[in-house]
């Protein structure tokens, strides 16, 4: 088996990117578990794949498009009642730190 494929710092960074908070316990548990899964993935190293094209999708289809014609839209009453917080017909979110991306 090779060296640890993922460090606790990397797990913490990934959790940040994914908007998840981990306790100390969780951090070490997840580091170990993700490490085991990534280690297992190392067996792919044995394959010669340099000339193999990546395949991101199982279907060979292309060019599926729709016409530029309107279709029925929802009414705010269809979805706003499901929202955690609403004001003036809009979704309310807590204050945003920093500038817009």
């Amino acid at each position, binding site marked *: 088996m090779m060296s640890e494929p993922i460090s606790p710092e990397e797990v913490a960074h990934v959790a*940040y*990117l994914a*908007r998840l908070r981990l306790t100390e316990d969780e951090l070490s548990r997840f580091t170990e578990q993700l490490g085991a899964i990534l280690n297992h993935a190392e067996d792919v190293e044995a394959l010669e794949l340099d000339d193999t094209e990546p395949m*991101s*999708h199982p*279907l060979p*289809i*292309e*060019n*599926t*498009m*729709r*016409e*530029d*014609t*309107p*279709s*029925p*839209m*929802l*009414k*705010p009453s269809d*979805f*706003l009642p499901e929202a955690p917080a609403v*004001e*003036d*017909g*809009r*979704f*309310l*979110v*807590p*204050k*945003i*730190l*920093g*500038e*817009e*991306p």
Partner: protein
Amino acid sequence: MNQEIFKDNWELIVGLEVHTELATKTKLFCGCLNQFGNEPNTNVCPVCLGLPGSLPVVNEIAVYFAMQLGRALHCSVNRSVFARKNYFYPDMPKDYQISQYDLPTNLEGYLELPSGETIGIERAHIEEDTGKTTHIGTSGRISGADYSLVDYNRAGVPLIEIVSKPEIRTIEQAKAYVSELRGIILALEISDAKMEEGSIRVDANVSVREIGENDLRTRCEIKNVNSLKSLGRAIEYEANRHIGLYKNGESPRQETRHWDENAGRTRSGRSKEDAEDYRYFPEPDLVPLNPSEETITKIDQEMPELPSKRREKLANLTGVKPSDVALLVERNHDVFALDVIRRGGLPDQVVKHLVNNLSAGLGELTAESLAQLVQMENKSEITSTQAKKMLGELVQRGGTPAELATELGFEAIETNEIENLVDQLINQHSDEWERFCSGDTKVQGFFVGQVMKATSGQADGKLINQILNERSTSK
């Protein structure tokens, strides 16, 4: 270009990213209306709200528009693959944006500026717009807001992002690039291209280097630039900021910065922790686009005449000022101008009227009417003041200049009538006349004004001057 920047042998390097909203009927991935000004969250469906289970389907017209623009920018149109750009932000319903990444629709083209210089185009790809966030609080800005409200009517509106190569070297070039691109977009009729209303949005990648250097230095991406004027100011500010840092032995950090129009400065966008890692990967919910040869050929064949070609035509025909030619093309009045000239309007007069008197639009005015009006003016049947008045009427309610002149009582005044008036004035104001004859041109205006007064402004100014000159030389 601002002298500050040039003075220590610093060179400005700018690349522009221009986002254009496409004027399709519906959004990029769903059949919701692509329309503004409606009540918040009324132009939405499960797809553009990012509801669980919903799936995108591409709008074929948006793709066609993108390919048209690509060809207009001399790009190759390629097999393309949509990709997800992942980051959390509430105006993005899925918390990823569907865009194109390593395989965009359009690659490697160029844009020719009116000056004849060309700026390389790296790519022009298709992506979806975000919703609109309103910041609630005393400041009205994002910082200091108490909370924010999100409206998804704009979410999923089709955009083309046109990315230039970092080949722009002056602020003038940057502005010319954007206005020329705008002209092309308008000629293609794929967007209303209003920068102030956000249907064209420009981000500037700015860096500087010392002249002679080959490598590029760290760049900053400037966002929130809402007019050509602020584009110039923002680039200038940012370039000076970089030079200042380098002179102090520091370096700028690669980051996104926001232009603050009121403060006249750029500001850092986000905290360091937020290192950008968008984790692009192929969008599994969509299939690749692979336009056929025939489609691309059709686009090329149906390509409307673009601004550069149109400017050439007008300039060749008339020899008027290049700035006026550019202006008419920008206003989309060049085809009309050529039509008027073909109908016998004198080119310089036609262009003069279009530039000075018809900036608000042509309304009911026809090419034939303007041609006739210019001819009447030329034969001194009406004065330039009268012509201007008549244009206002023709724009508003149409009609022929001949009938209108009669209706308004703009009958031509006989030359001998004006000669009589001039002679009377010479007798009444002999002192002034002496001064005029001895070369004091200041009193010329006095005589012209008096004749105009006597004729209620209907006399032809050129004719009055001609008579005055005749009288003074024959004296």
